[in-house]
């Protein structure tokens, strides 16, 4: 299994997310995470999907099929080395006097910000790439995690390249 990240520029219309994700389901690709939001133009939305795939030809077939959807304007696979990817996580920890200091140390090392603090709980925010977030979550597993919410990744290519209609066949 390999992990891929693809950005899909779509027309900003209702039902479009359904059309795109349905194609992943039909080709039996498992979506790891997905973000969707408006872009610099109100006309378009940008969907960033991270998914696991078996092989390149199945992946290419998925892109080909996606590309045929009339609402899909452009598709770009984002290579880790050529792109900047970020994810935001909110993590709620149990606030226990015995572990408090250790949690705070780890948070400092990862630049995680405390955004809510009560007698019983601490909510921290961390923006980083997914790997770094995974590492932080693993550290936190030594303590009591109450809840986690991650946004899924957003990703842009490095340099001045932008997503645009590409005729890649």
């Amino acid at each position, binding site marked *: 299994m390999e992990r891929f990240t693809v950005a899909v520029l779509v027309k900003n219309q209702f*039902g479009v997310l*359904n*059309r795109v994700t*349905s194609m992943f389901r*039909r080709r039996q690709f498992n979506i790891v995470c997905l973000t969707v939001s408006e872009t610099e133009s109100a006309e378009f939305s940008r969907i960033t999907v991270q998914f696991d795939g078996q092989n390149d*030809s199945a992946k*290419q*077939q998925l892109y*080909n*099929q996606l*590309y*045929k*959807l*009339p*609402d899909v304007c452009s598709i770009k696979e984002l290579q880790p080395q050529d792109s900047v990817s970020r994810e935001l996580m909110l993590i709620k920890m149990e606030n226990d006097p015995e572990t408090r200091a250790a949690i705070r140390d780890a948070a400092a090392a990862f630049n995680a910000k405390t955004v809510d603090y009560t007698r019983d709980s601490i909510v921290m925010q961390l923006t980083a790439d997914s790997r770094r977030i995974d590492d932080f979550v693993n550290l936190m597993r030594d303590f009591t995690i109450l809840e986690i919410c991650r946004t899924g990744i957003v990703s842009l290519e490095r340099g001045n390249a932008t997503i645009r209609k590409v005729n890649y*066949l």
Partner: protein
Amino acid sequence: MKISGADIVVQTLLEQGCDVVFGYPGGQVINLYDSLYKYQDSIRHVLTAHEQGAAHAADGYARASGRPGVVIATSGPGATNLVTGIATAYLDSVPLIAITGNVMGSQIGTDSFQEIDITGITLPITKHNYFVGRVEELADTLREAFRLAISGRPGPVLVDIPKDVQIAKTDYQPKPAVQPDEPFAAKEIRITEAAATINAARRPFVYFGGGVITAGAAEELLALAEKIDAPIGCSMMGLSAIPSDHPRFLGMQGMHGHYACSTAMHHADCIIALGVRFNDRVTGDRTKFARHAKIVHIDIDGAELDKTVHPTHGLRGDVGCTLRRLLPLLTAAPHPEWQQQVAAFRKEEAAQQTDRPGLTPQKALKMLDAHLTPNTPVATDVGQHQMWAAQTLHFQKSRRFISSGGLGTMGFGLGAAIGAAFATGERAVLVTGDGSFGMNCNELATAVSCKVPLVILLLNNGVLGMVRQWQTLFFDRHYSNTVLNRQTDYVALAAAFGAQGSVAQTPEQLEAALAAAFAADGPYVIDCRIDKDEFVLPMLPPGGSMDDIITKVGD
């Protein structure tokens, strides 16, 4: 001037050149039907017995004419009854416009009476679909639906129109009929590379599918085969694109393809595949398929290149445009040795033919064949009769063989034949089996009320023959639920619907029945009795290869 959404639908259909629609009324299209009433002098509505029949009729109309077929149904069950018809059109790339009504916009999402999310349901079986939220968008949405349906690789498009949008009024300006997107040739570099491979071939084979019919590229295809001295074969969907008796034509390839065709393809060193998608029924075991051949694959749909078979050259482009660019780059080269080999395959095929006494399906179809004119559209259902028809009948003109290839929809044929009759103005023929016919024989009512001249050759063997064949060959003759044991009197059934019919148990009776059927005013059902253990041969077992071909089944 402001007109209602319902009137806009009909006006837009007229502006798109549509003069016949198939459908069935209901609560949420009652406004639309009121407009159809108003415009009945300009647009004909064909009322079917069931929405599925209407969808197949619109599909058959599109296949026979090359113009988009239009089907109308109400919300809820009306819409869901279209689903098999839409999926059939999707798998065979047929331009179909499905218009459904839906409940008032204010009631959408409340599970109101006959409300269904038909755009959700048809998402994976349409090229695209639309829910029209505002009457102002209606005309342009319908135009866009037509453009999408006929552009590139054609396909079905559904437009769901809630009742309030049909009632609401807005300004309407007629526009000219939409044109399909301009067809384009593959990239020059890809064409040049492919030409080099083709020029180096010693045993070239031209293989085509339904895309050649859609592209209208038969002439270019024949020029190609002529120039490189190649035999020609097709997928079932390609049948009728070129005359069946063309000297280079070996017939259909695939699970039940012609022996010479499958064998030649197996031995070819270069396959030029045009508008065809290498379905599993064609390739069998993909790892063993055409092992010795380089494949040049040309298709308008880039997603078909490298989908199932890895081509040496994948050329994305219109078949006609691309071939016109490719042809000048090819060197004319005779391949006498290869032609001798192909001739030997033909001889082997001829030697496999057995002519038994009595009414065999092949004999019945040959007798039918003698009655066909070059313009006669022939529809089929799905099963053994379909394969026999595909193997036996001769076609002179494109779009005259109408059959559900991709989805394999039993019950497709009667509706499709009715649609084809409307499209061509010709007497249509339906070749069917008792299994398939039983699924949608209610459309006999439609054929009778519309006085459709229709010859129905029902190859009646009392069993679900294709499944039975598999049970015989691969399931130790466990005939699980394939023996129909029905007591249907098809002549009486035809009479009950107001049609004519007769039974044929011998070639003489069949000849008389065919003569009567081809002279009849309306539909005529021939209950043609054949043996339940007839086989469709040759057969490449599912997942098998040419090494496993079955040409004979022991007595």
